[in-house]
C-alpha cells in the first residue's frame, strides 16, 4: 500500500474544565437527526458524558468502532486516586453496555467528527462546549492507504451479529419486494 497524506483531527478533552452540562450530547444528537436538527435525543449522541458527581467523575467519551464481542477482561483506571468504572475510557460500541447504540434499533453509533458539506469549521460538540473542556486541533500525517469500511457495511455487520445472516438476508429480501410494489 502507498503512503498518503492524511489530516488528523484531534479533539482534546480537558476533564478538569468539564462542568457536566451535556451540551455536547445535545448538539451531536441534534446535528445527526434527519433532517438535520429536527430532533434532540442525547441517547443517540456520539459523545457521551460519563458523569458521577458524587465521585467527581466527569468524563466525555467519543464513540469509536463497533465491536461484536466484548473484551476478554476488563480494565479499570485509577487516576490521582480517583477510580473510574470498568470500561469507562473505552470508545467501543460494545455488546457489554448500552452506550453508543441507537436506542431502539441497537445499531452502533460512531463519531464522524461531524462530516458535513460544506465542512464544519470545528466539530459541533467543540463549538457548543463553551467551557473549553473540548478543544479542536488538526495536523497532517503520512499514513498507509486503507480501504474504508462503509457505514452501511458496519451497520449490516452489526445486524448480522445481532440477528444472524439468514434473518438479515430474509428481511432485506422482503423489504426490497415491498418497496418495489
Amino acid at each position: 500500500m502507498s503512503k498518503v497524506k492524511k489530516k488528523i483531527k484531534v479533539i482534546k478533552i480537558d476533564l478538569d474544565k468539564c462542568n457536566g452540562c451535556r451540551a455536547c450530547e445535545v448538539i451531536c444528537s441534534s446535528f445527526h437527526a434527519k433532517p438535520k436538527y429536527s430532533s434532540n435525543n442525547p441517547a443517540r449522541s456520539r459523545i457521551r458524558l460519563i458523569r458521577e458527581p458524587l465521585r467527581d467523575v466527569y468524563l466525555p467519551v467519543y464513540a469509536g468502532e463497533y465491536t461484536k464481542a466484548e473484551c476478554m477482561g476488563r480494565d479499570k483506571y485509577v487516576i490521582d486516586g480517583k477510580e473510574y468504572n470498568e470500561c469507562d475510557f473505552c470508545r467501543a460500541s460494545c455488546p457489554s453496555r448500552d452506550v453508543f447504540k441507537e436506542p431502539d434499533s441497537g445499531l452502533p453509533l460512531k463519531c464522524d467528527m461531524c462530516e458535513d458539506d460544506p465542512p464544519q469549521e470545528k466539530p459541533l460538540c467543540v463549538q457548543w462546549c463553551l467551557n473549553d473542556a473540548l478543544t479542536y486541533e488538526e495536523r497532517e500525517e503520512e499514513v498507509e492507504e486503507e480501504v474504508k469500511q462503509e457505514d452501511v457495511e458496519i451497520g449490516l455487520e452489526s445486524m448480522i451479529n445481532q440477528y444472524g445472516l439468514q434473518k438479515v438476508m430474509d428481511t432485506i429480501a422482503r423489504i426490497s419486494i415491498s418497496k418495489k410494489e
Partner: protein
Amino acid sequence: MRYAETGYNLEIDLSRGNVERLETDPRLTELYLGGLGTNTKILWDRVPPETEPFSSDNQLIFSTGLLVATPAPGANRTIVTTYSPQTLLMGYSMMGGFWAPELKHAGYDKLIFRGKSPNLIYVWINNDKVEIRDASHLRGKGAVETSELIRQELNEPGAQVAAIGLAGENKVYMASIEQGRSSASRLGIGAVMGDKGIKAIAVRGTRDINIARPSEFINLCNDVLQYIKIRAPKLVPEVMPILAGLGSPQEMAHYDEKWHTENFMWGNARVRRKDFWNKEIEKKWKETLETVRTRLISCYNCPMKCGAIISVPGISTYMMKCFSKLTYTMAAFVEDLDFGFKIAQRATEYGVDGFSTPQVMAFAFELKEAGILTDADFAGCPSDNEGKFYWLLDRIVRREGIGDVLANGTYWAAQQIGKGAEEYAHNNIKKHEQLPLKLGMLNPIYYLMYCTGEKANITQIEGNFPQAPFSTMELKEEFVKDWVQVPDEKFKKYVLDWEMRGERSMPFYPPVDACCEIVEWQEMMHHIDDAVGVCAGLSSFPLKPPYHIHNYPQIISSATGIDMDESGLKQVYKRNRTLLRAVNVRRGLRREDEKPPEDHWKKRFPELEKKLLDTYYQYKGWDLQGIPTKKTLHELALDYVAEDLEQRGIIKNEQSEEEN
C-alpha cells in the same frame, strides 16, 4: 406531530395504584404554553379551592417547561406545583438540573399525582414502563443517599432521581425536593410529596423531542450561545459581583462575601454587622471554599457553572448552589464558613429549604432568649452556636418536641406558641420567610414586587431592571447603550434619569406608573421562563440576559410551530399571570395579604404605598382587592374563570367594575 412537547402527561392515582398516559390538548399549549402556565390551569380545573394541601384530593404536578429537552440552552426546569401547606395558596417551586429533560425524553410533559399511597413508594419511569415500587427500605434515608441507592438498585446510572429526605416524609413545611445539584425548596412542596407517600421519582428516557423548524431554531440557539460567550465575562459595573454576570447568584465561584455578610441580617433577619468582613476572615473563608469545592457544575445544556460539588473531609459529598453556604452560618452567628458547608450537607440529606430553615432555627433561639420558649423546650440542647443548630435541625425534621411546632415555619409556629411570639416572626410575606434584608429607604419597585409576587419570594420576581441607580451619567449611558432587552425605549430613560439623591431618587422616582411598568416587565420574563422551562439565570434574573421579549417569540415559534409574535407572547403571559392570581384569589388571597414585612424598610410612605398598589392593580386589570375584573378575564379568554368567581360571589359584578 407535536413539537418541543411530547403531547402526553403521565397521571398516577396513588390511592388506587393506577397509571395512565393521557394525550393533552394542543390548544392548551397555544393558550398557556406549558410548565407553570398549564400547571396553573390543571390546578384551577381539577383541585377545588376548599382542598386542604394534605388531602388526597390535592394534586402534585411535576412539569417540564415547553422548551425543555430541545437544544435551547438552559431549558431544563422542572416546575412543581401544588397547594402549599405553608401559605395555603398555590405553591410553585422550580428546580434545574437534569430531571425535566429526562422526563421529556421518556415521553411525558408532566407527571401528575393524585390520591395518597398507603405505603412509602417510589416511582420508576423508564420510557413506556412505569412502576410504583416499594420504598420501605428507603424510609428515613437522606435525599442524596436515596438517589444513589435507587440508581444502584435499578442498575441505571443514567436515571435522574428527585427525592425527599426525612423532612418531606415528616411533612415539615420547609421540606424540599432534592435532585442532584438542584432542589425545589420553597413553600413546602416536599411535604406534599411526603404526604402522598412518594419517597422518590426515578426517570430514564431515550426518546426524540422534535423541532418544528429545525434550521431556524438552531440558529437562534447558536445566537444565544454566542451572546452568553460575550456577556458572561463582561460584568456590569457597580453591581455586586455575584449578580453582575449571568446565571444564578455566583456564590460557588466568588470568595468576597463582604456584601452579603454586612448587608444581610444575621440571626432571624435580626442584626446587621456592618464591619464584619476583614482580611483575616476573607483569607479563612477563601481557604475553606477552596478546600471543600471539588468542581463547579452546571445544569443540563447550560454553559454556566452555578453549582458546585462539595466534599467536606469526613462527611459525604453533596452538591450546592446559591446562597445556602451563608444562610446557616449567618443565622447561627458562626464565623467559620466550614460550619455552613457541614450543616448544609446534613440539611440537604434531610431535604429542607436552605432559606427558611436557618431563619426558623434562629427564630427559636430568639424566643428562648426572650423567655417565650423555655429551657424545658430545649432540654438536651448544647450551648455552643454550632451544636445548637445541629440539635434543633435534628428535632425539626423529626418533628420531635419543640421541633414539631417549628417544623411549620415561623408564621404558624408563632401562632401556636403565642405569648408574643408573633412579634418575632417578623420577616414573612404571605406566611413565608423572606430574604434576611432590612433596609432604610422604601424602594417603590421592590415594594410592589414584595407585595404582589405570587411566589412570595423576591428572587423569583426581580431581575432585568437594575436594583439601584448607577452613580454617574457615564455609567448610565454605558449601561443603556447596548440594552437590547428592554421591551420599550422608555426603560432606558428611567435608568438615565434615576439618581441616588435629590428629586429623581427613591421613593418618588421612578414615578408610580413607571414602577408598574418595570414590575410588569420583570414579572413577564419570569412567567415566560417558568412556562417554557428556561432557567431564570439566563433570562429573567440577571441584567442583559441572552433571552428576552424580542427573541423569545421566534424561539418558541420555531421550536413548537405555534404562531407567536411579541404581542401574542405578552398575551399568554397576561393570561398565565392572571389565572395564577385567580387561583389564589379563589383560595382567599386579598389586598390585606399583600404587604412587605413591617420592618423591611425603616422609611415608609403609606400614601405612596397605597397609590403604588392601587395603580398596579389597575394596570393589571384587577380591582382594588387585587381580584381580576370580569372585563380583564374576558379579554384573556378566561371567561370560565370569571363565571366561577362570580358564582362564588368573589366578583361582585357592578361593584368591582365601578371600583376600577
